[in-house]
């Protein structure tokens, strides 16, 4: 049993820390953190991350990586998270899509995309959710007709979050319209240029100010080479990638700066001649949050470790997802309680405490137990895969 890092890993972490403290500005962090849209600064930062050798540690050398264990990529995510960097700047490609290309893409596809992903140069956006296919993704209706050398795609996606700045759409669409092709069968995955004729992106703004999108396809021609893997196997690829995606996206360390901010606030803010940190109720709230964060970290570590060793993952990434997302809500609620009436003040307001970040996080936190799958579906998965309870 060993819950620590190797000396090499620790060295990597320290070098990375020095780099990030210098180059990861608040502006860049916030472009990711608030999903406001990655701008030129973050793209620049992304290329620098790669140039300094901090990207691609866990990727095969032939596609621009270093062929090391995945632990390094997790360290990268942790260190970014501790500094308000929600993830690597171009994260859909790096933490999600890229792995499926590596597993399932043709050699040509790998050669075309992986080096740019590993080099922090291109970004993807996920094209899964549709108006009538949310929790029930297998109900998707987007049509991709096989025309031989290309597919002709029409339909609508929604809540596709990075599409206004991504270079490519990682699109799931139905390619089998026969009675056998219903549900999770008959779905294929495509890589679509975001500027392909017929693709329209319309903004949707969330309560906490993030932008997400509706994406419309009107007879979009997608070359056959952009079909990922085999036709009609797309849903399997999506599911196969899910565990790893959870591991990479639900990173407990992202909550460290929130906790630290609140700890400092409680120590520095006085009421009735003593710091709030001496109020037993405040102490209890912060201690509980700290404990939950420790717990979430070791739970996430376990799931990542399974992934790194290519051991079977069943319910573990889902457990990480549910726990981290719900912890975020509890932590932010504790924060709002500690801030009292000041909690309602937004960034930019006189008297807004902690730069209004807790207020923003509060609004944001309604989404954490919904996005990328609800806690309800998550618990079904945990019970069914983790304990063998019968499917409903």
């Amino acid at each position: 049993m060993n819950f620590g890092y190797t000396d090499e890993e620790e060295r990597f972490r320290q070098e990375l820390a020095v780099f990030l403290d210098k180059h990861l500005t608040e502006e860049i962090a916030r472009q990711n953190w608030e999903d406001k849209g990655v701008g030129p600064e973050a793209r620049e930062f992304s290329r620098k991350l790669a140039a300094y050798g901090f990207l691609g540690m866990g990727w095969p050398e032939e596609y621009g990586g270093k062929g090391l264990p995945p632990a390094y990529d997790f360290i990268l995510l942790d260190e970014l998270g501790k500094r308000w960097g929600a993830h690597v700047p171009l994260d859909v490609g790096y933490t999600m899509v890229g792995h499926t290309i590596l597993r399932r893409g043709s050699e040509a596809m790998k050669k075309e995309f992986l080096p740019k992903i590993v080099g922090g140069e291109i970004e993807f956006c996920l094209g899964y959710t549709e108006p009538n296919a949310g929790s029930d993704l297998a109900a998707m209706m987007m049509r991709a007709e096989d025309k031989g050398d290309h597919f002709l795609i029409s339909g609508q996606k929604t809540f596709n979050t990075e599409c206004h700045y991504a270079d490519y759409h990682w699109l799931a669409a139905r390619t089998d319209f026969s009675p056998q092709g219903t549900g999770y069968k008959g779905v294929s995955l495509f890589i679509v240029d975001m500027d392909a004729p017929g693709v329209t992106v319309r903004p949707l703004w969330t309560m906490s100010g993030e932008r997400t999108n509706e994406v419309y396809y009107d007879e979009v021609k997608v070359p056959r080479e952009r079909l990922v893997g085999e036709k009609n196997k797309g849903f399997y690829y999506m599911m196969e990638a899910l565990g790893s995606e959870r591991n990479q996206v639900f990173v407990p360390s992202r909550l460290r700066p929130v906790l630290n901010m609140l700890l400092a606030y409680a120590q520095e803010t006085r009421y009735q001649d003593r710091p709030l940190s001496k109020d037993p109720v405040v102490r209890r709230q912060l201690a509980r949050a700290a404990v939950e964060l420790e717990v979430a970290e070791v739970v996430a570590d376990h799931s990542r470790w399974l992934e790194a060793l290519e051991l079977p993952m069943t319910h573990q990434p889902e457990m990480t997802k549910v726990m981290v997302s719900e912890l975020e809500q509890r932590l932010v609620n504790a924060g709002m309680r500690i801030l009292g009436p000041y909690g309602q003040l937004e960034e930019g307001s006189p008297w807004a405490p902690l730069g209004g970040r807790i207020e923003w996080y509060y609004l944001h936190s309604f989404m954490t137990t919904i996005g990328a799958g609800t806690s309800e579906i998550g618990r079904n998965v945990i019970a069914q895969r983790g304990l063998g309870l019968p499917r409903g």
Partner: protein
Amino acid sequence: MDFRLTPEQQMLKDSARDFLADHCSSDFVRQMEQDRRGFTSELWAGMAELGWMGLLIPEEYGGIGWGLTELVVMAEEMGRACLPGPFLPTTLGALALAQAGNEAQKQEILPAVVSGEAVLTLAYLEAGCAVYDPLFQAATARKQDGAWLLEGGKLFVPDAEASHWILLCARTSGSLRDQEGISLFLAPRAARGLELRPLKTIAGDKQFEVSLKEVALPPDALVGEAGQGWPLLEQLLMTGALAKCGEMVGGAAKVLEITADYAKERVQFGSPIGRFQAVQHHCANMLMDLESSRFITRKAAWSMGQERPNPMLVAAAKAWVSEAYRRVVSLGHQIGAATAYIVEHDMTLFSRRAKAAELAFGDAAYHYGQVAQRLGL
């Protein structure tokens, strides 16, 4: 025991719902968040026409002279519609004058409130205090050359800019957090030395910081007796807390309607999601929170009108409803999922206001403290 509204209360409620359906759509509410003043003269005039601002004002000054029960029933409708504007601050200001103002103040201002000409607000919290604590009164008022000179600042003052008069709390004696020595003053918003700075808030409501630099007020600006303002302030804050509870109940009712409708219509996995047990349980929890909130709020309001009122019920209601409403909006978002998280969706109006209402007139922490005190702990 009778849980029903009286026919008069029911009529009041029905007419409020009709009026707000016509004059306070959710688009209007969204628009008012962007508006500097936060409400329109048309809306305000319409409310005045229906007599709303006179609800608690005695008949001799043109009001209806009803009680807290009617206030919370009305507030439910306002919360349901997310009614913007200074209804509650004005009502509290008027209540202060009706209770403790001198005859001239009453004569001048109360009829103007009823007619919709005068907008009032109450300024009592301060920036120096890290938690909600209305006893924390550091702003001072001292007599000089026959006038009152006020110095200091107030925070979280609703609708200060739209107000014609501000009821200012200031200390005329005693130390910080003493009940003794708190006084209320009626100041024109345009008084010299009184400056406003707008705050940006989660609910998009119009709250202000008020700074007081040698604000000189005439002797008769004092409302009630010097140094004896705490019982009045306490009563105003209980009234405010009850009204907020009412608003939250109305909001929760609407959120549950939106959510239950969605659960019946939204199909996933070949079935309305309202058939799934997890969704049913969420909805059941919402219904329990809603109905319990409504009953405790109404009971607390009723109690305050009885011979032997039970102020602990007010604290209990504010503590319970503040937390219950937060749970309701959380579950509403959970069931409404991404769709309900987009700014155009009405859920986002309610969930942001739920936080504001939770904090107004004391959050749950404050009111649990009040309950503990009244339990003799």
